[in-house]
Each structure stands twice: as C-alpha cells, then as structure tokens.
C-alpha cells in the first residue's frame, strides 16, 4: 500500500505548477457559514430544481445555512483533478480514479468526521473505503455510487436484455437482424480499458486478470487488441452524458456502456431504452465529497457534507442520477427513489462492481502493471485506428 501511495503522490502533482500547499489540520469546530460554497461536481449531482422542480436539494440548504451554492460541472475525472489543481473551489465529488490523486497531490484536506453527525449512518462498506481513506485518515465523505450499466434500445434487442458485454465488443447480428456495426458506443476515456479487461477476465481466464485496473503487459495488450476490434464497430465514442443521449435518439445507437443517469433521462423522455447488468460484472464509480486544501468556505463545506449525507438528499440524488446511496436508510421511504430504487440501481451488486481507480505501475495483485499515462496515450491510438 505504501508503494501504491508513493506512485500516487508522484502521479498527482503533474498538472500543478503552483506550489502545493501544506496539508492543514482538520477543522476543530463548525462555525458560522461564510455565505458561499463552490462545488465541482458531475452533471446531475447538485440539482436545484431547474430541470425538474422535484429534484432540489440545494435551495433548502441555502436558506437554512445562508451558504450560496455555485456548481461547476466536470465531464471527466481528469477534468476534476485539473479544476481542483487550479483552485478556487471548496468541494469536489471525486470518483475513485481521481480521489487518491487529489489526496497525494495535497489538493484536499483531511476531514474531521466528528463534525459530521451523519457519518455513523454511512454504509459500512464505504466508511473506510480505500479511495478516500489513507492511513486511517478520512479525506472526504462518500456521496453516491453506481455501476456502468449496459444501456440498450429495446426495439433493437426485441425486448430481451443482452446478457453479455459481447454486444459492444464483438461484431454480431443483433436480434433485430442488423449488424451491431456502427450502432454501439464505448466510453471516450482511457479508464474504459478496464471495461475491456473486465470482459477478458470472464472470457479469457488464461490471461489471469485479477483486477481490471491492474494489468501486466500481456493482459494490457490483450485488452487493447479487444478495443481495436471494437473500434470497427464504434462510430463515435461517448464523452458526455448528454451527447450520448442525443446519439441514442438521433444517431441510431442501440447499445453502449452508460450511466443509469442517461437511462433515466431517456426513459423519462419515453425513449425505448432499458439497461442491464451483464454477467461479466461492471465497472463502476464511487464518489466522495472532498474538501479542498485551501477551501475559502470550510464551514459551509462541512455543513454541506453533513447535508449531503441526510437520507433525503441521498435518496433524491440516487433517484435523479440512477445511483446508490451511501446511507442505507435512504433506500427506504424516499418518494423519488421509491423502495425498489436501490435494487434497480444495483445496490445489491456492490461486490460485482470493479470501482474506478487510477492504474499505477506498482500494483498490488502483480509485480508490475501498466500505468495510467500509457492507458491515455494508447487509448488515443486505439480510437485513432492504431
């Protein structure tokens, strides 16, 4: 674990030319709010009822605490890291492939869990999750988590859910009689190499893949090979949730790895879209609300972290984004999420999800793994047809 950390440390400093600030002691007590709070978040994570009046967990917080919330949405984990490196934010909803980089880069500060009463209501599986806890020190509070599901068009699949990720990785004829060529998508982020590895883990056991984020040269090459084959099927890689929904509506895309968020969005528009949890398992994300090392509004930030763990907010976010709450109590009695919501979003599949984390060369499961920056340049090559 220490070597893991050392690599993370070095990995993380790269974007920042500014001198890293010295990690501070966590706050001792929550005082009066500073009147403002700025958050870097995934699209759909911080809603104030602008899209749908029912989904609003900001307005009430603002009136109660006097902290005016401003949100900067980021499309990728890397964007989040660079935004935090840039500074000027209090909080970030970082996924596992960003959180450790932020910690190692001293961009975020330890938090005092004693100041967050709802901490003890957290799902035990998440309380000490390795993506926000380093040497027993907590660098944030879990927000929500979820799987990267397989989204598909019910017309193209004749109402029958595809069982395997095979439909997006290998050329085949779909139930509607047409080839899947040009009708599937893949994620336009290097972390998607892990999805290929996950598929290989199930279908090519001889490679000996244990963890899709820890790949040796051979395993990595096999994953890239699979992705090169996939390139021939994919017209455009998806990068942005909203553009993906457009593609499913206007570009004739019928299957892709996706977030429940897009599924919900499309279903709300009465599109013929459904999602499934393929047999290979899925990759997924678990996000943590982390506090910037130089946060200008730490009191408001603590108030928000507490607010974000309330069962109501957890349930509402989960319903809106298609995620799973970090507070088990949220699964029951939330009007928006409904009592079946957690099950739909894969709450019980926790163990089957390989959560995003940054690939590093000194990996735990085997001696030497291919580090992230190679994933980046090679994935660019794959998309470019190399």
């Amino acid at each position, binding site marked *: 674990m220490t070597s893991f950390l050392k690599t993370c440390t070095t990995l993380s400093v790269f974007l920042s030319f500014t001198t890293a600030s010295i990690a501070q002691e966590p706050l001792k007590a929550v005082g009066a709010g500073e009147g403002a709070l700025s958050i870097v978040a995934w699209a759909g994570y911080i809603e104030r009822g*602008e899209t749908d009046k029912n989904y609003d967990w900001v307005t009430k917080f603002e009136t109660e605490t006097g902290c005016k919330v401003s949100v900067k949405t980021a499309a990728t984990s890397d964007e989040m890291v660079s935004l935090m490196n840039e500074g000027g934010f209090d909080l970030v909803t970082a996924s596992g492939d960003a959180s450790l980089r932020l910690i190692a880069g001293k961009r975020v500060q330890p938090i005092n869990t004693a100041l967050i009463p709802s901490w003890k209501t957290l799902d035990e599986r998440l309380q000490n999750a390795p993506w926000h806890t380093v040497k027993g020190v907590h660098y944030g509070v879990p927000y929500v988590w979820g799987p990267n599901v397989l989204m598909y068009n019910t017309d193209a699949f004749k109402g029958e859910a595809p069982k395997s990720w095979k439909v997006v990785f290998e050329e085949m004829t779909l139930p509607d009689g047409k080839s899947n060529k040009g009708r599937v998508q893949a994620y336009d982020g290097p972390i998607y190499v892990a999805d290929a590895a996950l598929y290989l883990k199930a279908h090519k056991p001889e490679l000996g893949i244990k963890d899709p984020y820890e790949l040796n040269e051979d395993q990595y090459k096999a994953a890239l090979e699979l992705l090169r084959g996939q390139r021939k099927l994919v017209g455009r890689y998806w990068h*942005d949730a909203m553009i993906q929904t457009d593609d499913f509506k206007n570009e004739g895309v019928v299957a892709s790895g996706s977030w429940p968020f897009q599924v919900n969005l499309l279903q709300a528009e009465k599109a013929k879209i459904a999602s499934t949890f393929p047999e290979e398992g899925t990759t997924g994300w678990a996000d943590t609300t982390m506090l910037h090392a130089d946060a200008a509004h730490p009191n408001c930030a603590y108030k928000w972290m507490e607010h974000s763990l309330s069962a109501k907010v957890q349930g509402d976010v989960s319903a809106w984004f298609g995620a799973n709450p970090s507070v088990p109590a949220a699964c029951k009695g939330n009007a928006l999420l409904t009592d079946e919501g957690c099950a739909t979003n894969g709450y019980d599949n926790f163990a089957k999800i390989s959560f995003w984390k940054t690939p590093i060369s000194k990996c735990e499961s085997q001696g030497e793994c291919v580090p992230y920056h190679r994933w980046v340049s090679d994935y660019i090559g794959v998309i470019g047809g190399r």
Partner: protein
Amino acid sequence: MRSDTEATASLPLKIAAGAGIAFLHLPILLIFVYAFTTEEKSFQWPPPGLTLNWFSVAWNRPDVWQALSLSVKVASVATAIALLLGTLAAAAVSQTRFFGREAISLLVILPIALPGIITGIALRSAFSLADIPYSLWTIILGHGTFCVVVVYNNAVARFRRTSGSLIEASMDLGADGFQTFRHIILPNIATALLAGGMLAFALSFDEVIVTTFTGGQQATLPIWMLQELIRPRQRPVTNVVAVVVVLVTFLPILAAYYLTRDTDEIAGSGK
C-alpha cells in the same frame, strides 16, 4: 472579353456565388427555427411544435445575464486594449522606418496565425508559473492578445492611405504634436479604428478556445453556451441567445460597413 468588365456576371458565376451565400446561411436559419421549438432536451427534426416561450425563459435566466455581462466586460476592455496597442503598433510601423519593422508586423499577426489552443495553453501555463489566479483580467489578457491584429490591420491600411504630408502640413501650419494628433490624425483614422474595434469586440465576444484556458471558472457567453449545449437544461434557450446576439449585432456590422465603405474595406480582418 468585354462581358467580363461589364456589370453583368455570367450565369454560372451568379449561381456559384448565390449557392455559396446560401450555404453560409441555411444553418443559421436552422438556429432561428430551433429557437422556437417545443422540444427541450435535444433537437429533433422536424421540430414537433413551435413556441415563443423560450424568449421569456431566456430573459428570466440569471445565468444568461451573468455570462452576457462578463462577455461584454471582457470584450469592451479587450477592445480598448487592442485599440491602443494596435494603433500604436500601426503608427510606428507605417509612419517610420526602423530596424525590426517586419518583426513587429509578424508579432502582431502571430496570435491569430497560430491556432487559438496554443495561445490558450501558453498563457495558461504562464499564469500557473507566475501564480496568477484566474480572473476577469486573465481572460482579457488572452483576448487582448489576439484582438490587436484586427485593429492593427485596419489602422495600418488607413495610415498607408493617409498621405504623410498631412501631418507635416498640420505641423507646418503651427499645430504641435498633440494638436496634430487631435485635429488631423485621429479624425482620419477614426472610422478605421471604429471598424477595427467592432471586429475586435466581435472576435472577443465569440471566442471559446482561448477562454477555455484563461477563464478558470468564469463563464463568458460562449463558455456558457458550450456548457449549455453539452449539458442541456433548456437547449432552445441557447438558440434564443444566439438569435438575439445575431440580431443585436446586425446594426453594428451594417454601421461598420458604411463607415469604412468609401475609405477602406475592413475586409480580411478575421480571427
């Protein structure tokens, strides 16, 4: 041969020119149509219905106004800076001969001749090196850099056409340097500066790429549009804003045309 110099063009030329202009305008008509669509999240063709609703929605969106005001601020200051720097450089280059004159004109053209992303990244890394926090001024710094060229081009063209003896005549008649500047130089280059200034303003107002790198978290109108288009809340609002911007800028473009028509074309002074 004669037909070539007479005022009538051949039919193929007319068709080619007309088709070219149509090609330039059809997508813009589409923007107009989609400002009225009833569909909210994404666009589908043909639009399911038409409504005027989005205009009032746009009017009541505070973020539109914030972005607009930031854009106007940035564009105004960047234009003012470009006017100052561009005129000075143009005056120096066209009124005197000195070693390195060529280098100056290259230097002025460079920010526009090199892709915006390079200007953007270079400035961004310089900001981090110098530990300059992102602010209104970092955006202005970026915009000012590439706006100088349009003012410079317009001013140089005008200086070139303004006889150098006018300045000497003025001084000969008893006007000192400042009087000459006020009574002779300024009135003679004013329309060129106005036209250059308006182009600079437009350039800054629509700039996305450099702003992405120098803006930090602030959203100018184009950045706001980018965010809206990628993560739509009410997509037609973006089109409404675009339509309004086109309509509002129509008059200044026309004004710039008539101001410079007789004296000099403002052509060729793009991004």
